[in-house]
């Protein structure tokens, strides 16, 4: 038997805890300091990868976006890119730009949801309500584009499902301008708040070397000073033709990690404006596929920058209508790995700030 120190208290934070999400963190505390924190994911495992082996390439579309329904376009993106390469399809130019627009809108919708939860985790109820309300601006636009508010199933191998309605560009431009004005106000109430800064500054510090060594990605990596964004480093679809600024901060603490997604949202507004300018005004948006398409004996790995970082999809095809294996490599799980390192030695009051600043989505990590 291991000798148990009487000073140490074990707390089960989750899965039924207002500050946990769909997972559990086994936290051991000594007074107010965390001795060890062990994340225990897996409560929402749905076997998406196994399910994909029993459905053909088209039937896989709706269920593969379920891991993060708020970011459903981005989750589906690498799968569609992979299948296009397997089947040898070239996507029409207009569809590439519409994909970029949908994907950036979706990134904002996801980040707003994430930010709302970050606000309520820190006890800031206004920061919960404002992003949750402003999300609706882009959800409405996505509804006009795709017909569904959250689970769009918009990207398909060969393009997008349908073209946008008439005078969509003008409506979107108005909303993007208003949205940008709104989220700049978050700075005054949340990011410049002295209490927030004193609370999250230097909390859960992740150095540049550790961030690379632990394999973090997305906003967590960029907050530690690494200039790495797949939209710029490995441009896919129309991203290569757009001018994208990569936001990085040097501090690597919870405050910087929470600020990067907000800056990314502002950058997303710029990207949407650029894409609207450069987009061909008319043209086909979709390549007709044969019914039940088959890939060759081949394998393909594609990755995109999602709201939580690099999101990869590895597809193995064995000349069947169904893929032999679909493996998703998600950003949430990579960021989760550094959580025990960050929480060790922190104060209990910093736990929600550090935990949620990692930009971790429990359902995506479990798949």
């Amino acid at each position, binding site marked *: 038997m291991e000798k148990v120190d009487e000073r140490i208290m074990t*707390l089960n934070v989750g899965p039924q805890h207002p500050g946990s999400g769909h997972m559990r963190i086994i936290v051991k505390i000594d007074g107010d300091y965390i001795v060890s924190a062990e994340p225990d994911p897996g409560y929402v495992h749905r076997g998406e990868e196994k399910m994909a082996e029993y459905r053909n390439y088209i039937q896989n579309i709706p269920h593969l976006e379920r891991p993060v329904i708020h970011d459903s376009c981005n989750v589906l993106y690498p799968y569609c890119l992979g299948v296009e390469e397997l089947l040898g399809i070239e996507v029409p130019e207009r569809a590439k730009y519409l994909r970029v627009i949908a994907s950036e809108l979706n990134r904002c919708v996801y980040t707003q949801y994430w930010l709302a939860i970050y606000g309520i985790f820190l*006890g*800031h109820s*206004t920061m919960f309500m404002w992003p949750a309300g402003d999300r609706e601006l882009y959800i409405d636009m996505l509804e006009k584009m795709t017909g569904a508010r959250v689970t769009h199933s918009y990207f398909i191998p060969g393009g997008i499902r349908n073209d946008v309605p008439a005078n969509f560009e003008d409506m979107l431009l108005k909303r993007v301008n208003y949205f940008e004005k709104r989220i700049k106000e978050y700075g005054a109430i949340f990011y410049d*708040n002295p209490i927030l800064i*004193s609370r999250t500054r230097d909390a859960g510090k992740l150095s540049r070397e550790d961030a690379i060594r632990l394999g973090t990605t997305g906003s967590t990596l960029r907050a530690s000073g690494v200039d790495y964004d797949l939209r710029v480093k490995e441009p896919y679809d129309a991203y290569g033709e757009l001018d994208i600024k990569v936001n990085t901060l040097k501090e690597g603490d919870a405050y910087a990690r929470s600020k990067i997604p907000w800056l990314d949202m502002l950058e997303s507004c710029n990207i949407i404006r650029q894409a609207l300018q450069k987009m061909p005004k008319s043209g086909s948006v979709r390549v007709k596929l044969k019914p039940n398409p088959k890939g060759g004996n081949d394998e393909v790995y594609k990755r995109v920058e999602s709201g939580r970082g690099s999101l990869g999809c590895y597809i193995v095809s064995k000349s069947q209508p169904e893929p032999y294996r679909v493996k998703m490599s998600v950003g949430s799980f990579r960021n989760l790995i550094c959580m025990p390192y960050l929480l060790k030695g922190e104060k209990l*009051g910093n736990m*929600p700030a550090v935990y949620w600043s990692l930009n971790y989505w429990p359902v995506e990590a479990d798949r």
Partner: protein
Amino acid sequence: MSTIAPKFRLSYFIKSLTDNVFWTITLVTLVGLPFIQVMLFYLELPVIGTRLLDPYLALTILADPSRQIPLIKSLLQTELFRIVAFPGFGFAALLAAGTIFIERKMLAKLQLRVGPFYCGKIEGILQLMSDGIKLLSKEIIIPAKADKPIFWAAPVLFVGTAAAFVSLIPAARGGWVVADADVGLLTVFAIIGFFPVITVLSAWSANSKFPFIGGIRALHQMVSFEIPLILSVLGVVILTGTLNLTEIVESQYTFWWIIFLPIGAIVFFIAMLAELERIPFDLPEAESEIVAGWLTEFSGMMYGLVQLGSYLKLYAFAGLFVVLFLGGWSGPNIWPPFPEEIIEEGINVGPITARFPGLPLLDQQMLNDALWFVVKVVGVIFFILLPRGVFPRIRIDLLLHIGWYKLIGLAFVNIFIALALVYAGVLGPEGIL
């Protein structure tokens, strides 16, 4: 479920108002008045004029309602009225209920939403009542390993202590206070000292981890903020030379102490937020860290009692701030005087002249004082509620840093300012002002 708020229509609004008035009148006449008449038989009968109020006389009151006036007037002078209605428990509970309503609607407006809307027809004004009924009808679950007597006693003790605090706050001149203690301010701090004890008792007796952490946090917070709270008040005591709250108010008829002691007022206000466990100092109930802190294991009306107690405490602290720094009830006369002709000549309704001997029930001065007191208290409560929409929660080490380091230092600065004012001869017994 998604329901869209109906559009505001004046006719619906008026109809809902008249509906509420109708039911109020119906209930008062069918239930309220008979109840009062029945209770008259069991009360100790006062002397009206030269005659004992026997049941016969009481029944004649039914024929002439104006004869009830002396009865009501004598009721207003009793201790019971002060404890139950004004300025005691009833008044405080009413203000607390108003506070909850204002808090919800104000936060909703700040956060771009509607807030309570459907309950009670007018802007969700009866939401609190439905919440109360819900809490009453819920099952009370007690943890198996809890220390049951203490666990049961904690919410009751909490409300009792808060009510004792309320009883010390004077609301109007002429002895409108439940307990007019000569060492009123000391008594206040003696009562505030009970809250951490009750919190720790309830947290410990629940025998659960999250309440335990919450209780320890509450103990740290309350004990470390009581010291700046007491020190910040010392300035006022030095200037007035008394601990009696009524006399402290009377010393501010010309100017309020917040003009001379702004630092003390700020320190008192921040320490008050911490004592009340309001955001940004709501660490003992920090949701994302320790579920609901020391309230985690309370369910049903036990939770409701703790909430009632904390809002009574909120009113009492706001009242104390008004009494100490904002001149209590003092203010210009704005309440209209009672019309003399009604007292002397009565009201002419056609051929009949109705006379009301014994009017007015309450003198103009007292009503004016109460009005000013309520206005100031509501203003202070508004500023207590406001940080909830603006600030996130603070961390425990930063909290203790503020309490022990910054606020205590500022409180000493405040004391030196007060002493300087007295020794320079500006204020105090032989002062210029």
